């Protein structure tokens, strides 16, 4: 992966609809994996009052010590543009991609969903899990832990269906995303 940030065209007033409603955007941020880098990114969002809907981070290149942070955020076009410029300004940030606007991308999230129940409800939860291609990764005689992978909407739907069937706990990874196609980031 080449280390330099590519210069990018700043949008003009005409491209930034001042009256547009806030919209959800997914940013992929490649950073040097050094101490405090996550604090810098998170501090930027809290310090400037931007939303974080979801945040994931993990090392992706051991040799180059690079990590990737995926952030889902919501804002008006002007705010989204600010978030991008502010992220690019951080010294350890190598690359920022707004996957929502830069061509097609795929995003996935994993959830572990614990459901407690007996009898009819237990059977129903298994049936729904099957439809959603969720796997059972733990079970006792009155509980299951399901593992489900998909986009955020699919996970939301599954969790909602589990609600009346004895849902007692959920852990979600947050969104990871990547651009489609053969291009590197």
């Amino acid at each position: 992966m080449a280390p330099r940030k590519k210069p990018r065209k700043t949008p003009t007033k005409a491209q930034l609809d001042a009256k547009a409603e806030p919209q959800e955007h997914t940013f992929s941020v490649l950073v040097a994996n050094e101490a405090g880098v996550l604090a810098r990114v998170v501090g930027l969002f809290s310090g400037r009052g931007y939303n974080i809907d979801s945040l994931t981070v993990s090392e992706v290149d051991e040799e180059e010590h690079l990590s990737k942070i995926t952030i889902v955020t919501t804002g008006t076009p002007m705010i989204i543009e600010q978030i991008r410029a502010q992220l690019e300004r951080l010294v350890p940030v190598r690359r920022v991609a707004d996957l929502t606007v830069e061509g097609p991308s795929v995003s996935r999230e994993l959830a572990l969903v614990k459901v407690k129940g007996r009898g009819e409800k237990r059977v129903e939860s298994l049936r729904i899990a099957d439809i959603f291609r969720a796997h059972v990764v733990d079970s006792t005689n009155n509980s299951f832990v399901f593992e489900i992978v998909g986009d955020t909407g699919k996970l939301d739907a599954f969790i909602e269906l589990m609600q009346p069937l004895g849902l007692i706990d959920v852990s979600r990874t947050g969104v990871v995303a990547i651009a489609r196609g053969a291009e590197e980031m």
Partner: protein
Amino acid sequence: MAKRRFIGGEIILKALADQDVDVVFGYPGGVTLPLYDKIGQQNRTKHILVAHEQGAVHAAEGYARSTGKPGVALATSGPGATNTVTGLVDALMDSIPVVCLTGQVVSTLIGNDAFQEADTTGITRPATKHNYLVKSTEDLARVIHEAFYVATHGRPGPVLVDIPKDVILGEGEYVGPEDVLPKSYAPQIKGEKASIEEAVELMASAKRPIIYAGGGVINSGPKASKLLTELVDMTGFPCTLTLMGLGAYPASRPQFLGMPGMHGTLEANMAMYQCDVMVNIGARFDDRVTGKTDAFSPRSKKIHVDIDPSSINKNIAVDVPIIGDCTSVLRDMLRIWKAKNLKTDKPALKKWWAQIGKWQAKDSLGFEQDDGPIKQQYALSRLRELTRGDDVYVTTDVGQHQMWAAQYLHFEEPNRWMTSGGLGTMGYGVPAAMGVQAGHPDSKVVCVTSEGSLLMNIQEMATIAKYGLPVKILNLNNNVLGMIRQWQELFHGNRESECDLSRGPDFLKLAEGFGFVPLSASDPAEVDDAINEMMRIDKPVFLNMAVSRDENVFPMIPAGAAHYDIVLGPNDQRAEVDDDDMMMA
């Protein structure tokens, strides 16, 4: 060639020498003792022992702003480091290149609540452009060079390097600045050609243009101010400069409209409001300039040149964004303008200047000095006239005196005016003046202050006297936190609350005690002699000038109001922008 190994303390000094650092403003402590031991054994880099670490950072800022070179501050761990925070944020807000080195407890104790431990990198993360905790002496030289690089490249700012005691004591390899290039930090210097072409064509077509320039021009180096001046002169456009940009275009030229914003001139604000093309060069549409953003220059096409992409479209969306360094973009603007043989719309400009002339005729900075108490406006106008053409640098504190200084002192060159703009830090002026004087030993340095601000870092008068720096402090003593009193008068029912300073200390005795030559004036007739005397004495001088307690700074656009809501004078008269004026737009 095999690299030689050095002790951490030596590496720090070698790195500072290789970065051409002549002076460091610092204060020692437990964990930096081994570094001070090395400092004491060399004389390449001068160390100025300040009285408080906040003063060290402001001094470094003053040095940086007046010389164009990065300023360097040094503090110990814990309380030394926390004392630097205000100075760091000040430098961050005003984009001043400062490198601050702090000591840290030994690596093995970090996180243990050790004596004088503070999470310095955590505390200063939002207070700096970037910061580092050095984990090993092997990294020390590289990190320091990188810190200088980051502080001075792109939009400048403060960078902090936190160095544990064991790293100062340990041994490591030295690398020079030429061997260090930060992996990811590569700001864009050259503006995009297509955008610059679009910008100059828009300028040529303008009927009511204005050039609005700011601190970015100063930060870009003196060449940028020359190019800006060339652009203004070539186009015949009016020019306004922000508080941070004063001096980027000579104040004495007729095309200069003064400062825009809350305490800007009528002509600058009305021209900003009514223009059809606004050329923002290195300014950032700060809220003190724009007022109410919905009503800010509603009919203009806006060009914005800035080295920091995050400054563009932050407060005000613009039509032609240009990312790049002011020097480079201004040079390209001039070149492309000439290559295309562009011409301005002369008849339209003539009409525009006629309109501007009407606003200028209202003389929004006019005042009358009667035989009552000295007015600050008068004192500062006299300072301007009596030092015209001299080699003078000015720093200020924060409050009414700062705004009057910005309005009544005129700057013909960049780097001559040092004030805390973004953060508005009372206590900036005295230590900043010390830093300026350290960088310009043979020039005259005046700190314009008032007693509230003065008391915030008055301890640095001891440092100034100790080093024999001939700084001149002009204390516009109004016995009050004047700017607070003004807002209480205008916006809080004229009820004064906790702003009176009339029972303050005897400043002349204090000045004398600190080792300054004390001077005083209280009658308008004494002003000239007192100023001449202050400027003449080649020693630290303190001129205590008793001034009016009741004066207010005008013009004034109340916070959050629009430019046409400008209040011109003491009787709360509106500017009376008549219908004709509005129709023009």
